[in-house]
């Protein structure tokens, strides 16, 4: 055995405090911002200009902030759905695919019936999208519950397949005949668009739907017996089994909720700011929402805040592209480093650092 020495150790806290839980994501945000600004400096960009464009402008300029709200909708929706699954230890990382399939299901209506009118159209599209997303996630659930396949890999593979389905439709049957051969569908009719709620902006009613569902998620996860069963079913399947809760049901429910929410987000995107089905309907929302879910502490209320932060990073990245010539890939680097910083910071919510000799090295 080596000589006894003093070294840092992680000691579990009896009870993590709420203020620490709130501090962790803030600390992570500050750390990630500093690291990334340093990176921009290294890349020869002006960090002050980037900071202004990326961090300040989304909040101080109203047009910019309205775009933040617009992006908050899909991120909030997807992340709320994912967080329910993650708390039940069901790792659905295929929200990107569920989002795309949702967008496709929603688009079917205006693509097939471009002349249809009536206020029923956009709600029907949102519902169709949500069902499409749930259906796509249902494949993963079947594979996991019936075949015991790893849901991480299956859901991710299905996302890659979904992109190809989208490409197939846009280059083939759903291509706009008058679209100069661009891979996109026809522009949707007026009644296929979710109504706007803030005049002069692109913010639409789907943000209100997302907020309402976030509150529903709060009631479901924090207050209902069903939510409790779900969480226990994932955390301790054996114990849950003895108590009569089924692991399989927890997996099905987690994935269907996650797919439903992601599909709804996809539908709201094509029936909202985009107004048609096209290749770039998602700029990685499905993956960014994973970060949003964790950053919000997997808590329905926390996620409201983290989705605004993530939306601001997207908009800030766009701003910095224009005003400080920052490559758009910088957003992905920021996202990755933010999640990593958060995961490290959260360690100190659960543990405290102590300097001591481990028990195993105390001489007998």
């Amino acid at each position: 055995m080596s000589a006894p020495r003093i070294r840092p150790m992680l000691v579990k806290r009896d009870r993590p405090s709420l203020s620490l839980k709130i501090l962790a994501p803030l600390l992570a945000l500050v750390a990630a911002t500093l690291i990334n600004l340093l990176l921009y400096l290294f890349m020869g960009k002006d960090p002050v200009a980037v900071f202004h464009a990326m961090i300040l402008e989304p909040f101080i300029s109203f047009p910019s902030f309205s775009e933040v709200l617009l992006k908050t909708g899909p991120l909030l929706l997807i992340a709320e759905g994912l967080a329910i699954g993650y708390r039940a230890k069901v790792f659905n990382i295929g929200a990107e695919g569920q989002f795309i399939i949702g967008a496709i299901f929603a688009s079917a209506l205006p693509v097939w019936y471009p002349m249809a009118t009536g206020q029923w159209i956009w709600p029907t599209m949102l519902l169709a999208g949500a069902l499409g997303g749930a259906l796509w996630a249902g494949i993963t659930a079947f594979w996991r519950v019936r075949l015991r396949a790893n849901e991480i890999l299956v859901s991710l593979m299905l996302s890659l397949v979904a992109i190809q389905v989208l490409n197939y439709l846009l280059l083939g049957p759903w291509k706009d005949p008058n679209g100069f051969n661009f891979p996109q569908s026809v522009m949707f009719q007026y009644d296929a668009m979710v109504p706007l709620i803030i005049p002069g902006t692109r913010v639409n009613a789907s943000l209100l739907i997302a907020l309402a569902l976030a509150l529903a998620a709060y009631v479901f996860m924090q207050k209902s017996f069903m939510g409790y069963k779900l969480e226990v079913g994932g955390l301790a399947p054996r114990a849950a089994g003895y108590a009569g809760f089924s692991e399989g049901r927890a997996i099905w429910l987690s994935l269907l909720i996650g797919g439903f929410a992601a599909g709804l987000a996809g539908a709201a995107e094509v029936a909202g700011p985009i107004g048609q089905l096209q290749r770039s309907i998602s700029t990685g929302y499905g993956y960014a929402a994973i970060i949003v879910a964790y950053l919000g502490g997997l808590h329905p209320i926390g996620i409201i805040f983290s989705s605004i932060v993530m939306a601001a990073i997207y908009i800030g990245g766009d701003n910095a592209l224009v005003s400080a010539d920052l490559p758009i890939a910088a957003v992905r680097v920021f996202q990755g480093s933010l999640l990593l910083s958060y995961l490290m910071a959260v360690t100190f919510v659960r543990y405290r650092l102590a300097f001591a000799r481990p028990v195993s090295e105390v001489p007998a």
Partner: protein
Amino acid sequence: MIALEFILSGMLAAATPFLLAALGELVGERAGVLNLGVEGLMALGAAIAFIIVYHGGGHVFAFAGAGLAAALLSLLFAFAALGLQANQVAAGLAIGILGQGLSALVGKTYESLTVKGLPKLAVPGLSDLPVVGGLFVQDPVVWLSLAATLAIWATFAFTKTGLLLRAVGENPKAAHSIGYPVIAIRVAAVAFGGLMAGFAGAYAATVYTPLWADGMIAGRGWIALALVVFGTWLTARIFWGACLFGAVSLAGLAAQAGGVELPSQLLASMPYLVTIVVLGIISSNRRLLKLNGVASLGEPFKP
């Protein structure tokens, strides 16, 4: 017959990115660590290697640089997941996103550029055989990958290092209590996994299809992760699995060349669909997974 010859001669090269990344992940998983960041590690390796070759640094330095960069990034994962006990699934995803972002960032000005690959080396005599002759004409990295497969198989089968890796993956408490540095061994295994993923990316971007495009790894890192499951954590089966995927990715091209009318999107989805189907088949065989699975995979260990 021509299609068969085409698949046989190209299969090993197509399999190599899968094989290298999966072998690296195998070592990490055998030591009990699930690193989901392979896709990002490969992407970073691919970008770094491409840049080095593009500027005339040569393939040896390119592979070294790619391996080093990916190993460093995987050490960041190790610091979070093993040092700070962060959630392994989430930390792996974070590294994946970070790696893909970094690759796009450094590779931005090289988008769609190409470099020269590597010449092929033929095995004298065998390469003249009819039909299967193409199997024996491969670039040097393919030959080295086969050697690496053998070396890793032998390490697990015969050496103390192999036993040690398996011990910390199966029962870290027991390994710790008889004095083995569990965390240090796991960190080393993760770094090795990163190194191999970097090589895999380097091969993809500078030898197999010598060009750089953002997103060019196209899910191959994720398929490598699935391959470790297909191979039920056994080196030889992972090798055959990688060959299968190499063949699948060529079969589509062969079918197209043979005049079979299939939407190109279906061909592009083929590897993903095969992954989903095979995952279902292998995973439903619980005995197989129990027999060879890693008992403490993904579980944190605190000494």
